[in-house]
C-alpha cells in the first residue's frame, strides 16, 4: 500500500526531498561557491525532470483527496520543465546573489503547492495547494532585496492575494453549505444551478481569475510583474498561470459540469475582456517586461477561448497551448533576463539595433515573439489556431471574430520589438554579450521547442489521447 502511495506521489516527494537537501546544505555549509551550487541544483532539477517521465499508474489515495492520471503526470512534467528552464536562465542573475539556496527553496515550495493543487480531489487540498504556492511567491517577488520596487511589488501581491484567497475561501464555504461536501466527486452530484450555488461558484471563479490574471481581476499584475526580478516575473506569468489553468479546466469540466451553461457565458465575457484589455495595455508599453506581462493577460484570454470550447478538443488544445507558451514566453523572458542582468537595459528603445552585436539573442527573441504573436510556422500559430478552433466548436462566431481581430492587433506590438531589434539604427548599441552555458542550453531548448512542438503532430495527438473533455 505504501509503495503505491509513494509511487503516485513521487513527483511531489522528489521536490520535497530537494527542498530538504537544500535546507540541510544551507544550515551545514557556512561557505559555498555559488557557481558550483547553481550547477548542482540545475543537475538535480534535470534529474527530477527525467524521473518524472517514468510511467506512473493512475491512482486515487487518501480517500479521494489526492488523485493522479497520465494527463496530470504530463502536466506536472511540463511544470518541471518550465521550472528547469527558468532556473537555467536565472544563472546570470543568481550568480551574484547571496541567497541562492533560499531562492530555490521558495521556488520549489511553490512548485509543490502547484503539484498538490493539480492532483487535488477535494476543495480543501486544492485550497492548501494554492496557498502553499502563493505565500512563497510573495517572498520571491521581493527577492531583489535592495530594490524598493521589488518589496513594493511583493507587498501588493500579498495583499491582493490575501483578498482573493478570502473571497475564494468564502466561496468554498458557501459551496460546502449548499452541498454539504468538499469532495469533487460528490459536489458534482449535488449541483443544481441555484442562485446560491452560482454565487459560490462566482466567488471561486474570481479566485481563479485572480491567479490567471483575467480582466478585471488582473490589476495587481502590472506592479508585481514590474517590481519582481525578471526570473520571478517569468515564473509568475508562465508556470503559475499554467498550473492554475490545469486545475481550473479540470474543475470546470468535472466538478462544475452541471452548471456548464452558466460558466460558459461568464468565461466568454472574461475572455473577451482579457484579450482586448490585455492587448490595449500592451500596445502602450515601452518596457519589455511590462509588455510581456500585459501580453500574457491577453494570452490568458486566448487560453480561456479554448476552455470555452468545453470539449475534448478544448482540453487538449489548452494543454498543448500551455506547452507552447512555456517555450515561447520563456524564450522571450530569458533574453530580457540576460540583457537586464548584464546591462540593466529594459526598454524597447534600448533594444534598437541589438541584431548588430548579438545576432543569436536577436533570433531567439524574434522566434519567441513570432510564436507569441501566432505567426506560422512557429508553434504559437498552431496553438492559437487550435484554441480558436475549439472555441468555434460552440458556434459563437462573434466571439471568435473578436479574438481573431485581437490576434492582428497583438501583431503590432510584438513586431514593434522585432522591428527595433532588426531594423532600427542604434544610438547606443548594446555591446556583444557573453551567454553563459546554462542560459545557452535554455535558449536552445526554448527555440527548438517553439519550432518542433508545432511541426511534430504526435505531440498534439498524445495530449489529445490523454484528454477527457466535458
Amino acid at each position, binding site marked *: 500500500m505504501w509503495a503505491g502511495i509513494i509511487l503516485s506521489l513521487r513527483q511531489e516527494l522528489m521536490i520535497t526531498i530537494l527542498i530538504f537537501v537544500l535546507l540541510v546544505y544551507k544550515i551545514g555549509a557556512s561557505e559555498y561557491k555559488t557557481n558550483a551550487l547553481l550547477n548542482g541544483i540545475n543537475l538535480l532539477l534535470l534529474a527530477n525532470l527525467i524521473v518524472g517521465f517514468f510511467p506512473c499508474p493512475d491512482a486515487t489515495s487518501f480517500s479521494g483527496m489526492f488523485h493522479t492520471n497520465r494527463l496530470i503526470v504530463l502536466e506536472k512534467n511540463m511544470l518541471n520543465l518550465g521550472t528547469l528552464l527558468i532556473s537555467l536562465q536565472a544563472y546570470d542573475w543568481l550568480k551574484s546573489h547571496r541567497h541562492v539556496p533560499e531562492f530555490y527553496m521558495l521556488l520549489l515550495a511553490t512548485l509543490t503547492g502547484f503539484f498538490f493543487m493539480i492532483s487535488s480531489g477535494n476543495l480543501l487540498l486544492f485550497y492548501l495547494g494554492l496557498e502553499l504556492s502563493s505565500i512563497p511567491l510573495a517572498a520571491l517577488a521581493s527577492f531583489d532585496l535592495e530594490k524598493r520596487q521589488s518589496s513594493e511589488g511583493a507587498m501588493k501581491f500579498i495583499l491582493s492575494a490575501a483578498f482573493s484567497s478570502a473571497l475564494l475561501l468564502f466561496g468554498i464555504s458557501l459551496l460546502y453549505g449548499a452541498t454539504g461536501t468538499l469532495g469533487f466527486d460528490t459536489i458534482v452530484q449535488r449541483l443544481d444551478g441555484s442562485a446560491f450555488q452560482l454565487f459560490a461558484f*462566482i466567488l471561486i471563479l474570481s479566485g481563479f481569475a485572480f491567479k490567471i490574471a483575467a480582466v478585471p481581476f488582473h490589476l495587481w499584475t502590472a506592479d508585481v510583474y514590474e517590481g519582481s526580478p525578471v526570473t520571478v516575473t517569468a515564473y509568475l506569468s508562465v508556470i503559475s498561470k499554467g498550473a492554475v489553468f490545469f486545475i481550473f479546466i479540470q474543475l470546470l469540466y468535472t466538478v462544475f459540469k452541471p452548471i456548464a451553461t452558466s460558466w460558459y457565458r461568464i468565461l466568454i465575457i472574461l475572455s473577451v475582456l482579457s484579450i482586448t484589455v490585455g492587448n490595449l495595455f500592451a500596445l502602450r508599453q515601452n518596457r519589455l517586461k511590462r509588455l510581456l506581462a500585459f501580453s500574457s493577460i491577453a494570452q490568458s484570454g486566448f487560453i480561456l477561448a479554448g476552455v470555452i470550447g468545453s470539449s475534448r478538443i478544448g482540453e487538449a488544445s489548452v494543454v498543448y497551448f500551455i506547452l507552447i507558451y512555456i517555450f515561447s514566453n520563456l524564450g522571450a523572458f530569458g533574453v530580457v533576463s540576460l540583457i537586464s542582468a548584464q546591462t540593466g537595459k529594459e526598454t524597447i528603445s534600448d533594444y534598437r539595433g541589438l541584431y548588430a552585436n548579438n545576432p543569436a539573442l536577436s533570433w531567439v527573441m524574434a522566434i519567441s515573439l513570432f510564436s507569441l504573436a501566432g505567426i506560422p510556422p512557429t508553434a504559437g500559430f498552431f496553438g492559437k489556431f487550435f484554441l480558436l478552433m475549439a472555441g468555434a466548436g460552440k458556434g459563437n462566431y462573434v466571439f471568435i471574430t473578436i479574438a481573431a481581430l485581437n*490576434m492582428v492587433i497583438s501583431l503590432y506590438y510584438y513586431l514593434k520589438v522585432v522591428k527595433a531589434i532588426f531594423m532600427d539604427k542604434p544610438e547606443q548599441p548594446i555591446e556583444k554579450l557573453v551567454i553563459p552555458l546554462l542560459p545557452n542550453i535554455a535558449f536552445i531548448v526554448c527555440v527548438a521547442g517553439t519550432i518542433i512542438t508545432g511541426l511534430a503532430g504526435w505531440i498534439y495527438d498524445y495530449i489529445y489521447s490523454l484528454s477527457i473533455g466535458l
Partner: protein
Amino acid sequence: MPNASYIVLIPLLPLAGFALLGLFGRRYIKGFAGVLGTSFVLVSTALALYVAWQYFSISLPQGHFKQTVPLNLNWLTFSPGLSIDMSIILDPISVMMIVVVTLISLLVHTFSLGYMKGETRYATYYAFLNLFTFSMLGLVLSGNLFETYIFWELVGCSSFLLIGFYFDRPTAVAAAKKAFIVTRFADLGFLVGILILSFHADTLDIHTLIQRLTQPGPQLTNITTASFLGISALSWGLVLVFVGGAGKSAMFPLHIWLPDAMEGPTPVSALIHAATMVVAGVYLVARLYPVYAHAGPAVLQVVLYVGALSALLAAIIACTQTDIKRVLAYSTMSQIGYMMFALGAHGYTASMFHLFTHAFFKALLFLCAGVIIHRVHSNEMKDMGALRKLLPLTHACFLIACLAISGIPPFSGFFSKEDILLAAWNSNKLVYAVGLFTSGLTAFYMFRLYFSVFWGRPTHEAGAHPGHHPETPFTEKLPLVILALGALSAGWIPFSRFVTADGKPEPAHGVSVFAIAPVALALIGIATAAYLYRKETERPQRAAAAFKGFYQFAYHKFYIDEVYTFITKKIIFNGIGRPAAWIDKNIVDGLMNLLATITARIAAGIKGIQSGKVQDYTLYFFAGIVGLAVLFIYLYT
C-alpha cells in the same frame, strides 16, 4: 496519371534553391547565385510542363478530368474529422496554375539575371524569388484548406520581403508594410471563413469539403440551417473566404496596397503583381467554386459586384496616373476585377482563361516597363517619349501586349475577354455594360501609355546617349520574346476543352457576332488615345508645316483638340477620375487610419485605471465579482 514523386519536386526545388542561396548565397555563391536560382526553377518548369502534358493527354478515362490527390501526408490530427495534411491536389486549374507560375517565374528569373546585376544583395534577391515561387506553387497545389492558409501566409511574407527589397528607401519599407498589413487584415476573414466551413463540414480536405457541402447530407443541412444575423453559416463562411481572396487580389476597397507595392524591383512586380500572387484570390474562389455555385446566388452576387466595381474603378483611375508602373498596377486590378466578376457570373472557364492569358501580357508589360525605366531612369511618363527607335524590340513587345490587353483579335486577350463578356451577358446585363465600357477604357489608357512612351518628342534623358549601349542583354530579350509569343497566341488554345467547372470538356465556341461591340469600343479607345497623345507632343515639330498650307486644317484640329481635351481632361479626369482617386486616397485610406487612431486613443485612456494603489485594485476586483453575480444570477436564472 502523373506520379507524386516528381510532382513534389516542383515546389520543393525552389525551396532548395532558397535554402542554398539563403545560407551560402552571400558568402560563397555570389555572382553565380542568379544562374543557380534560375536553374532550380528551370527544372521545376520542365516538370510542370511534363505533368500538364501527362494530365491533359492521358487522364481522360471517363470523359472528364478528375480531381485526384496523388499525395496525402497526415501531419496534425486535430480531431477524428479535422486533420491538417500536406497533400497535393491535381485538377485542371491546379495543373494550369503550376504551368503559369513556373513559366512566368522562370522568365522573371532569367530577366533578372541582367536586370539586377550589380545589386549588392543579388544573392538575397534570388533567394527571396525562389522562396516566393515555392510558396506560390505550394498554395496552388495544396489539397487541404489549412495547408492553403499556411502557404497563403507564406506568399504574403515572401512578397513583403520582395516589395521591401530596397529597404534603404523609406517608401519601399512603407509600401511593404502597407501590403503586409492590409492583406493580413483580409487574411483574418479567410481564417474565420475556414473555421466556419471546415467545422461544419467536419473536414479540412478540400475534395471532401466540396463533396459534403454540395451534396445533400447531414453536414449540408447543418451549415445551411445554422445562421447568424439571418444569414446562413455557409454564406458567412464563403463571404469571409472571399474577403481573404479580395485582399490578396486587390479588390475594392482592399486594393490600396497594390499601387504602393510598385516600389519593389520591376521584375518582382511582373511576377507578383501580374501573374501570381494577385490572382491567388481568384484562384481561391475558383478552388471552392462548386460550393459557391451551390450555395445560391447571394454570395456569387457579392463576388460579381465587387469584381465589376473594381474593374471599372481601377480603369478610370488608370487614366489619370502618370507613373508607368502605377498605370500598370491599376490595370492589373481592373483585369482581376474581370476575372472575379466572371466567376460571379458563372463564367468559370472564362475567368480561368483570362487568368491564363493575362499572365502573359501583363508580365510582358511589366518587364517592358522595367527595360524602359532602366533606360530613362524615371518612372514618370513625361520623362519618356519617342523610345520606339531606341528600343525597337521592347516597342514591338509592348505593342503586342497592349493589343492583347485591349482585346484586339487575334491577340490572346480578345478571346478570354470575349468569353467573360459572354458570361456576363448571360447573367447580368448591368455588369455586361460595365465590362464593355471598361474594355473601351482599357484600350484608351493602355494606348495613352503606349503613345506617350514610344511616340512623341524625345526627352532629354532618353536621347542623351543614343546608341551608347545595346538595347538590352540577351537574358532580357529572351523572356520578352517568349512572353510576346504567349501574349500573341495563348488565346488560340481551346481552353474549354481542358478547364471547366465540372471537368467535362466542352467544345470551344467560335468567334461570334457578339465580339463586334467590344472590339469596336476598343478601337475607338485606341483611336482616341492616338489622336490625343500622339499629336499633342508632336505639335512643336509640325507647327511650321501646319502654318503654311494647312492653316484651316490645323485650326480645325485645334478646335477638336480642345473639345477632346475638355471631354477627357475636364469631365473624365476632373469629374470622375479625380474624385475616384480622392475617395481612394482620403476616404478609404482615411478609414483605415481612423481605426488605428481609435485603438491608440482607447489604449491611452484605459491607462488611468492602473493607478498603482492596492485599494483601487481590490475595488475593481470586487466590482468584477458583483458585476458577474448581477449579470448571471439575475439575468439568467
